[in-house]
């Protein structure tokens, strides 16, 4: 998955598990950028009575590097507090929830937003309401309106949302983890079966989303408005993290008391989709999660020498002879994931290069305007406003990265290489049409979550 359950330890701590990060120039408000960080993978919509929620003991952060050193210059922190209106019922709600202050809503979450910028800490808002989970037509009869009320415009200029959303990442999980037996190509797999359409393994599941929209001028290093794609000031690198306090003690008092103490320790991070998932080996994934991006030079070897191309050649022996024979370090992967793509490599006016510091960041050139005719394949589809220039909610990052790993981006840095014909066609066969509802055209862009009453359904 993008980063769902991608490492051994964080897979046991879903509340703190980053799943996806998005960063894009807002298509309906192009003077702003939208940053989204999702947590809590694979939420079953009917998972009550204690429906999914953010962790009160987790420090959630969205971090922005705007000078290319791999260190956050601007950080947005989100802290949650759960309140129980009536401890004498087992129910999440005792009647329909008609508003964010409805007394029928028993268990609710409030949160604060704090900005750390250039070492200065500012609490931007407190006691902001997070919407309830989408329970069903009787409990949450007008969910869209309820969630819209949880979009908060802050006096400092940011717009924020924190709450449940429908999963937007689409991928055929079942086939990927069955030795990359991608259904449209499984007739060519070493275990051949009749080719078939892909199946979206994340369909009708939910996640929890932190979203923030803010003017571009609040993100550039000097407050300038980014208009020149070749200007280094137009670039930002984004990642998200979750941290827990050092110690957690279950006090043997019989009262369920928990003591948490000490500095926050990062337990999960995510910049580029699938980075930790497929590039970092199992024995190093937990460690990777604790590291800051500016230390990613230590993982360079894993980026230069990837396992996926080897496996593709192994599982599809007739499809990737050129890839199998390619033994040079993957400089294309280093550029895409660790430095950004320098100017002049792809096309005039396109670059995501943030400097020589090797850091896994989701890089966004804010001077590249959103397009009215986007391609879900981003750069591979000739759409420079999409991944790996940031990431939009509908980008098919699985296929983009799969094809890049299969060799289609090697010629950008090594013209002597000819990609195998299959590389530019390889896919799990999914598009956004394999998601059961459409993305929103405005903030927070990810869809209203699936309701527990309707999902799963017969």
């Amino acid at each position: 998955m993008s980063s769902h359950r991608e490492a051994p330890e964080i897979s046991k701590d879903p509340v703190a598990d980053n799943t996806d990060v998005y960063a894009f120039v807002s298509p309906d408000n192009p003077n702003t950028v939208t940053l989204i960080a999702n947590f809590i993978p694979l939420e079953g919509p009917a998972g009550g009575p204690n429906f999914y929620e953010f962790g009160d003991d987790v420090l959630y952060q969205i971090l922005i590097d705007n000078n290319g050193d791999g260190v956050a210059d601007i950080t947005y922190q989100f802290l949650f507090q759960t309140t129980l209106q009536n401890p004498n019922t087992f129910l999440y709600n005792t009647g329909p929830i008609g508003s964010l202050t409805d007394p029928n809503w028993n268990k609710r979450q409030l949160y604060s937003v704090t900005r750390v910028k250039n070492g200065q800490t500012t609490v931007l808002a407190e006691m902001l309401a997070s919407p309830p989970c989408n329970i069903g037509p009787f409990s949450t009869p007008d969910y869209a309106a309820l969630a819209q009320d949880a979009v908060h415009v802050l006096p400092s200029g940011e717009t924020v949302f924190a709450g449940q959303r429908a999963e937007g990442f689409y991928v055929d999980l079942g086939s990927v983890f069955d030795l990359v037996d991608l259904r449209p190509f499984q007739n060519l797999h070493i275990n051949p079966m009749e080719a078939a359409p892909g199946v979206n393994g994340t369909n009708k599941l939910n996640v929890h989303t932190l979203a923030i929209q803010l003017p571009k001028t609040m993100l550039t290093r000097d407050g300038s408005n980014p208009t020149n794609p070749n200007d280094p000031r137009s670039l930002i690198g984004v990642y998200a993290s979750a941290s827990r306090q050092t110690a957690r003690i279950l006090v043997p008092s019989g009262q369920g008391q928990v003591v948490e103490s000490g500095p926050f320790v990062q337990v999960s991070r995510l910049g580029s989709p699938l980075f930790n998932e497929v590039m970092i080996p199992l024995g190093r994934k937990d460690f990777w999660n604790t590291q800051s991006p500016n230390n990613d030079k230590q993982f360079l070897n894993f980026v230069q020498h990837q396992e996926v191309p080897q496996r593709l050649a192994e599982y599809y022996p007739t499809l990737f002879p050129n890839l199998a024979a390619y033994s040079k370090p993957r400089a294309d992967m280093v550029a895409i994931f660790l430095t950004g793509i320098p100017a002049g490599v792809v096309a005039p006016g396109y670059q995501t290069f943030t400097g020589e510091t090797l850091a896994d960041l989701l890089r966004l050139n804010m001077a590249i305007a959103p397009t009215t005719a986007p391609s879900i394949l981003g750069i591979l589809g000739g759409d420079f406003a999409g991944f790996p220039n940031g990431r939009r909610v509908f980008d098919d990052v699985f296929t983009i990265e799969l094809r890049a790993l299969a060799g289609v981006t090697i010629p950008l840095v090594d013209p002597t290489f000819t990609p195998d014909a299959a590389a530019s066609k390889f896919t799990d066969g999914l598009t956004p049409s394999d998601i059961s509802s459409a993305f929103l055209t405005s903030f927070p862009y990810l869809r209203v979550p699936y309701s527990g009453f309707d999902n799963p359904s017969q």
Partner: protein
Amino acid sequence: MKTLTRRSLLQQVPVSAAALSLLPAMPALAAIHHSPKAATQLSAKSAGSMVVHVNNVATGEMTLLVGTRAVVLRDPRIVACFLDATREGGSA
């Protein structure tokens, strides 16, 4: 010599800590610029308590976790007292 109970031992900790040189705390971890808001909100849950982790019994190095801070100190004498207390078989 006066018998040292765990209660009296723990009461001594702040005095001992103040008298000792403090070591840098956890430099290897990813830097997290936690805000005062974060510190206040989360440390309130553990108000009135402190977690002590003895990193190395042989050297007496330990980490005191207080609120959202960590203070590393080295005091073999205190760690020896901890060991004595555990040998006494004291219960929680």
